[in-house]
Structure formats: structure tokens, C-alpha cells
């Protein structure tokens, strides 16, 4: 499953953040998004995920193909690891959580409540959700936050397995994930911060001359 984006303009609230974003990710490929803080990586990913409607341009991908992972883990601290995964499995249609548990080594934690785990462990559980979704295009926002070296490697292995299975991924990150074959896109060249073009208050409506 491929993802192809043409001339995309993204907004956050009243502000247009990015314009002219064009890239494509074929099946089996990964794209690393780079850019300084506040450049608009999160905004781009939220637009790809279908949460924020784009101002302009097209996203060629089935919206039901995209699995989105945000900064926030989206875990329920009162539920165990197993219950959290079972919940997402039922939301996305029944998929076997076993590969996800395996990939992120969650078996020892299975009956622990999410609220009792460390930030890194929570992150692993949150990433395991991606495997449970069964969706081919991953859009990930800083997936390695609070992961140690060993688990970053686990994550990279999971991404590689996903790509090898015909999936694709768009990953915003600052660190080197160890995915040498992945393309890199610096989004700072698409940054076009201004008042969004569909805002009729953006250009001056001089009353008389005032």
C-alpha cells in the first residue's frame, strides 16, 4: 500500500503551517520526516491521519489504511497491557495481538496495569498497538521518545518487518533509527507560516483608507 501526497497545505487552527508538501512512499518503503521543533511535523501527520482537513492538495491513500500514533500514548492506566491491546484489537476488527506482544517483548508485562509501568514501557505498549491495527501505512510522531537503545532497536526491527510485509511508514523523528534504506524528507523547506488562505480576514479590507 502506497501513500502519495501532492501539494499539500496543512493548517493548525487559524494558521497555515506547511504548503506544497509533495512526497510519495511506495509499499515497502519508509520516509523519515525531519525538521526543527515547531516546523509542522505533527501538523503534517495529523493531516495525513485525517484528523485535520488539508487546506489544499491531495492525499492519495485510503484513510482506512493509515495507522496514526501521536505523542500521547493513548493508554488507559486502569487497564492491564493485555486489556489495552485487546481493546484496540476489537476497535480495529479482531487481529491477533500475539505478534505485537512478541515484537515489543511485552509478554512479561502482560498482566501489569499501564498506570504502574515506566514511560518507556508505556511507549512500547503504545507502539505495539500499531501491529494490532493491521493497517499498512504507519504515520508515527516521535515514536522513540523515552525508549532505551535496546527498545529503539526493537522498534526498528518491527518497522523493518512491517516494510518487508509490504507496509510503509512515515516517521517524524530526531534520532537515527538504523533504517539505512529509508528516504529522508526535511520538511523545513515546505514551511509557509501565514494566516490560512481561506480566511477572509487575512488580507486587509481597508474601510475607506483606515
Amino acid at each position: 500500500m502506497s501513500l502519495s501526497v501532492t501539494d499539500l497545505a496543512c493548517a493548525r487552527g487559524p494558521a497555515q503551517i506547511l504548503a506544497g508538501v509533495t512526497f510519495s512512499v511506495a509499499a515497502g518503503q519508509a520516509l523519515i520526516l525531519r525538521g526543527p521543533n515547531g516546523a509542522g511535523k505533527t501538523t503534517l501527520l495529523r493531516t495525513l491521519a485525517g484528523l485535520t482537513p488539508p487546506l489544499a492538495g491531495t492525499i492519495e491513500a485510503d484513510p482506512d489504511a493509515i495507522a496514526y500514533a501521536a505523542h500521547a500514548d493513548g493508554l488507559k492506566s486502569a487497564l492491564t497491557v493485555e486489556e489495552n491491546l485487546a481493546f484496540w484489537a476489537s476497535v480495529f476488527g479482531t487481529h491477533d495481538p500475539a505478534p505485537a506482544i512478541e515484537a515489543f517483548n511485552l509478554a512479561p508485562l502482560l498482566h501489569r496495569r499501564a498506570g504502574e509501568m515506566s514511560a518507556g514501557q508505556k511507549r512500547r505498549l503504545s507502539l505495539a498497538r500499531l501491529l494490532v491495527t493491521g493497517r499498512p501505512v504507519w504515520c508515527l510522531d516521535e515514536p522513540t521518545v523515552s525508549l532505551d537503545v535496546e527498545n529503539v532497536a526493537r522498534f526498528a526491527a518491527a518497522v523493518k518487518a512491517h516494510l518487508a510485509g509490504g507496509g510503509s511508514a512515515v516517521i517524524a523523528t530526531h534520532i537515527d533509527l538504523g533504517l539505512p534504506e529509508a528516504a529522508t524528507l526535511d520538511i523545513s523547506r515546505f514551511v509557509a507560516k501565514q494566516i490560512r488562505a481561506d480566511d477572509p480576514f487575512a488580507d486587509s479590507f481597508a474601510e475607506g483608507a483606515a
Partner: protein
Amino acid sequence: MSSLWEYANPRKFMATSAFLLPWTAGIAAVCLVTGLVWGFFFTPDDFRQGSTVKIIYVHVPAAIMAINAWFMMLVTSIIWVIRRHHVSVLAAKAAAPVGMVFTLIALATGALWGQPMWGTWWEWDPRLTSFLILFLFYLGYMALWEAIENPDSAADLTSVLCLVGSVFAVISRYALLFWNQGLHQGATLSLDREQNISNVYWYPLVITLAGFGFLFIALVLYRTRTEIRARRLKALIAQERMA
């Protein structure tokens, strides 16, 4: 080809409203002064209600405009939802406090009129109560506008609230009739007005009604201009922050 939707452009609206504002305000002032002076000084007392009948010249127009104001907000909110015209939803925002003040006038004068007629300041009569509920709707609508930072989100959410609220306002109206039969007299203004009200009261009432109507239009135009400027100000500040 000129179309009504052109006025949804802020620039066009500012130009048109600048032209209309003095006229509507002028007509409103003339009608209000004429109608109220006529009504207060030059109408006879009612044989049954005595001089309290004079309250009609503020009570009835305020009540009618309170409902019309909400109806106007409903229409402009729907226009925003369907056609995304910013001026439309800003007009709804501008109308809310005016409608709320009209509702308050209707409530206060209703209570003052009810005291000598019914012997109580407040009667849980269906009509009075529906205005109290309308007042609560106005309050909620305005509070929601104030609470949301992003102007477009606020416009969307208040429009949804206005739509849902309108449906519930109508249901409440019927629920209240079911709940209490009420003391309030029948509608003052209806097509068979001859049966309700005689000409001596009718003419000044129509003039004050026109006065309240034009006052509403003038205030909404004026306040919409303010809202457009405030919205522009917000856009500029956002722009400066990004630069």
C-alpha cells in the same frame, strides 16, 4: 451578476453596513421616540387593566424581537455551517447579547405587569417560563463563544449548539403548555387583531415594534462590524506571532 452572498465578504459587508447603519439607527430612534411617547402620553387607559396597558409598548416588541433574534441566529448559523461565510456566523455572535437584553426586558416588564394584574411578581406561566428558558439559551450560547480560543472552532460549535438548542426550545415550549395552562393573555398581535386590541393601542404598538426591529438591525450591523474587526485583529496577532 450580483448575489446576496457577496455581502458575506467582510470588505463588502463593511462598506454596505457603513452605508446602512446611520439609516437604520435613525429610523430606529425616530420610531422608538414616536411610538413610546405616543404610547405613554397619548393612549387611554384600558377599562380593565388601567394604565398598566402602557407596558405593552415595551413588553410586546421586546418579546417579539427576542424570539426573532434567536431565529436570525439560527438562520445565520445554518448559513455558516453550509456555506462557511464568516460574516454570517459573526452576525449570529453579534446578535446574541442584543437578543438577550430583549429577553431580559420582556421578562422584567412581564414581572412588573404581572404584579398588579395577577398579584404576583413571578408566575410560572408557560409564556413567561419559555422566555426564562430562552434567556438561559442565550447565556449558554454566549458563554460557549467566550470559552473557545480558535474562532472557527467556536463558530462551528456554537452553530451546532444553536441548532440543537432551537429544537429543544421548541420542545420546551410544548412541554410547558402541557405542564401549566397559564394565566397569560393570548397573543397580542395576530391576524384577527380586531378581536384582541383596538386601533388606539394598535398604531403606537406597530410603531414601537418597528422601532425595536430597526434598533435590532442597527445594533446587529454595528456589533457585526465590531466582531469583524475583532476577528481581523485576531488574524493579525496570529500573523505577527508567526513572523
